[in-house]
């Protein structure tokens, strides 16, 4: 059982030691992963080259867990890939890999639910793609977490900005408190300058295109959820769902602040993790995807 502690002092030091403008890391070609899914699942990812900070697939599985969640992927190109944006984060948090929080278990478990609840032809496994990858246009739905620790390179800013203007949809999840919000806001001012971040009313189609969501629930991380105590972290007391709209009034980015849907997907099978959080998380996730594929 792990408890993620986000100590305020710790974070201040981390930001003080922040290095901006990290070089674009060379990485493992993530497309190779898609080509041979079965092999990739069983084999661990190759270790990164030592000289520059790179993005690598972390050990998301705990000991003894690697064989548990392996659905049989079906062959052929699919209509939907749950794509996670692999971006450059601050060094201090997981060695630049804040994008990979809850990866890949959250992705896979969410996909299991998605495939059962809808008739979407979704690829069963995770699909991480770099923001600088030109092939990102093949996946018009993108998911990203821990944006409080986002430190995008210029190439990533341009890639994501272009992706969103062309018609891509981004779901932002799992960041808490004022300080992370400010980092997020600063990053998105670079990506979509001049686009305001506004509240999304509960009457918006994203709340009722598949499930009727009547209230916004704060979904805690797994530790706090299992303990049954307060659900908030940092100073993020109230959950909010905000969005960035384009000139035609279409939603481009949906932002889940002060809530952690990814953890709810990841630990939905855990009997101590309250069902109502997982239910809400799955409902919101399905709604996001149905909305993204029709609007």
């Amino acid at each position, binding site marked *: 059982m792990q408890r993620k502690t986000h100590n305020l002092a710790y974070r201040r030091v981390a930001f003080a030691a922040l290095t901006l403008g990290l070089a674009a890391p060379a990485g493992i070609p993530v497309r190779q992963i898609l080509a041979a899914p079965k092999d990739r699942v069983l084999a661990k990812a190759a270790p990164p080259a030592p000289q520059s900070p790179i993005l690598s697939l972390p050990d998301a599985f705990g000991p003894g867990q690697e064989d548990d969640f392996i659905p049989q992927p079906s062959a052929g190109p699919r209509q939907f890939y749950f794509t996670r944006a692999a971006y450059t984060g601050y060094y201090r948090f997981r060695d630049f890999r804040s994008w990979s929080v809850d990866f890949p278990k959250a992705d896979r478990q969410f996909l299991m639910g998605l495939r059962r609840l809808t*008739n979407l032809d979704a690829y069963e496994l995770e699909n991480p793609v770099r923001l600088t990858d030109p092939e990102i246009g093949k996946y*018009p739905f993108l998911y990203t977490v821990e944006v409080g620790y986002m430190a995008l390179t210029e190439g990533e800013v341009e890639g994501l900005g272009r992706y969103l203007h062309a018609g891509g949809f981004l779901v932002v999840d799992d960041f808490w408190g004022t300080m992370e919000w400010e980092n997020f806001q600063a990053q998105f001012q670079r990506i979509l300058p001049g686009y305001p971040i506004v509240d999304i009313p509960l009457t918006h189609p994203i709340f009722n295109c598949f499930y009727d969501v009547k209230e916004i629930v704060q979904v805690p991380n797994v530790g706090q959820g299992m303990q049954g105590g307060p659900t908030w972290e940092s100073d993020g007391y109230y959950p909010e769902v905000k969005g960035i709209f384009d000139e035609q009034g279409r939603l481009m980015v949906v932002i889940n602040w002060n809530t952690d849907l990814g953890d709810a997907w990841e630990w939905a099978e855990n009997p101590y993790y309250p069902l109502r959080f997982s239910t809400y998380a799955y409902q919101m996730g399905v709604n996001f995807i149905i909305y993204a594929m029709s609007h």
Partner: protein
Amino acid sequence: MPSWFESLFEFLFKYRPLLYDRGELSLGVSWPVVVAGVAGVAIAVPTLLRYRAIQGKASARDRLVLTGLRVAILLLVVFCLFRPSLVLSTVVPQRSFVGILLDDSRSMQIADVGGKARGAFIQETFGPEGSALAEALSEKFMLRFFRFSDSADRLSDPGSLGFAGPSTHLARALERSVSELSNVPLAGIVLVSDGADNSTDAISDTLLDLQARKVPVHTVGLGRERFTRDIEVSRVEAPRTVLEGSSLVVDVTLSQRGFDGETVRLDVEDDGRIVNSRDVTLTGEAEATTVRVHFTVPSPGARVFRFKVAVAEGEMVTQNNSREQLIEVEDRREKILYFEGEPRFELKFIRRAVTEDENLQLVCLQRTAEGKFLRLDVDDAEELASGFPKTREELFRYRGIVLGSIEASYFTHDQLRMIADFVSQRGGGLLVLGGRLSFSEGGYAGTPVEEVLPVVLEAVDISPETEEVSAPGFFASLVVEPTPFGTTHPVTQFGSDLESSAERFKTLPPLSTLNDVRSVKPGATTLLEGSGDGISDQPILVFQRYGRGKAIALTVNDSWQWQMHHDIPLEDLTHELFWRRLLRWLVSYVPDQVAVTTDKSRYAPGESVVLTAEVDDDRFLKVNNAQVQATVRAPSGDVVERPMEWTVDKDGEYRAGFLPGEKGIFEVAVQAEREGALLGTATSYMEIEDLDDEYFQAEMRAPLLSRIANETGGGFYRPETVSRLPEDMSYTEGGATVRERRDLWDMPALFLLMVGLVSAEWSYRKYRGLA
């Protein structure tokens, strides 16, 4: 016939060939001649026998030749004695009537004969000063003059013709004049015209009638048969109605004389403003050059577009360099039902592409889970509340259907039948998109929808347990290219000309298909095809007409890559344009429940207009007992109401006529009701304007005029040969005639033949030394 031949004939045979044509040959045998013949035989036979008895130094052959020659001479004399003659009917002078039809239409103003107008001949010949021809005619006949253009009237003063008639109807003119002169002895009709007939009726019926009445028509053709220099906008093919914001595609045909290989500029004007220009190179004289012009229509309403070519120097006719066309631009919102069987990005991006198009309403029914649907852009909460429409009334409210990746087993058999009837009976458009559950992979083989589709569906195995197709999934990544037809079709043309359009497609990213579509049906046309992954020429965009409507198949399943791919710049609008055009094309020409048409869009003043309405009910079956009312609004604001009557011979068709009293654009609104319930309304426009039809195809039509003359027993003349007309006219069967017998025995030909035979006999004897 060349005139030297005619002169020679006349010299040899005493009369012109025309008289032999009209008359009959006969022998005037009488009893003195018979007596002379018998006496001749009585003398000749013993003489011959005596001669045979005498042997001389002549050989048998000589005897034969000489005997033959002498017998021939004798026979010739006997023939002349038998009085060969030509029997002719000639008209009694001043007892018969002749109708002279003078062409009073505008084409007679064309000055192509030595700088003089065609009508000048009429005025010189039949005008107040008189002429030899007029005198000769009036000596023999009583003349009755008629003027004709689109109708015929009696004319008292031939010199008063104004040549302002808007069109020429030869058949009507002939019928009218014949019926006016039916109670007098009619010797014939003289038709003085250039033959530039504008009517669409066949003239054969009129000619048969004239043949039966034995009235010969003599035609005098005025004007040149071929202009030396002229450019003409012969035809403009444009749709009568178009949706606002659409790109209009119009085919303009130019014909020319004397401008071979030159380049001219074709302008398209809308209300005086040039909306498009094209440079056209005129090809050989035998072919007309057709050019396709594109332009967008800005705002709704009835607009008159003018297609013109600048007048080049030396042109003989300048009024045929422009044509006008009335086109209605409609501002309506076409409803299309898009049924998607599973969540796909294709739906998202198609919606995005057409969301700003105010003339398209894409109603989306998206199946998100088993039995769960998401409805988008519906008019109210009840629309499609129970999923895909189950009744024809509900389905036929849409003008187009788009089927996404939805398997055939979702529909009941009746719904599949309804979709097929939507195309064949309602006349709507069906677009089927490629996907995991489309075409054969969706189990459509053997269903009514398969008949409608323009592609051939291979038979597939359906596994009995899952009721899904058990074949392995097909996948191919294809580079899309237009076919030669596709490079000119408005939906797939991305560029100002054919080459740039094909080049543009090469820069677009490849698309993928999940459907193994290999061949198209015989009547279908392919616009786009793809190659890649070892496949070549897989049909991608195919369409065919089916029944009253059309069916289109798009076999790729991710056209949104043309929007999202990293090679496509953000400003690029190819994807949006493609989908807007495709969906507009899908609903183009889809009929409504009530439709009103007129046979032309432009009429001349004074021409009566026939309105035709077609009325269907909401199942698009014809209705014969509706109350249909037409309201005509004139440009000045006057409103006229006319009830429309069912034309009994055709189901669902109603007709009314009216005579417009002024010039300008008229609006016709038709409303149809049945038992108090409104079936629908329709609007149409027409323009009343002085038409310039007369100046188009205004060359003298010698074949037509010759045909009229030959079939009725008359002759075809030109101004140079018309002096023979009075004499020729007198040899006719019609009118008050007498039969004349003219002797032929004194033909120079017979005399020459006699002289020839005698000298031949004499020279043979001299040659043989027989003295």
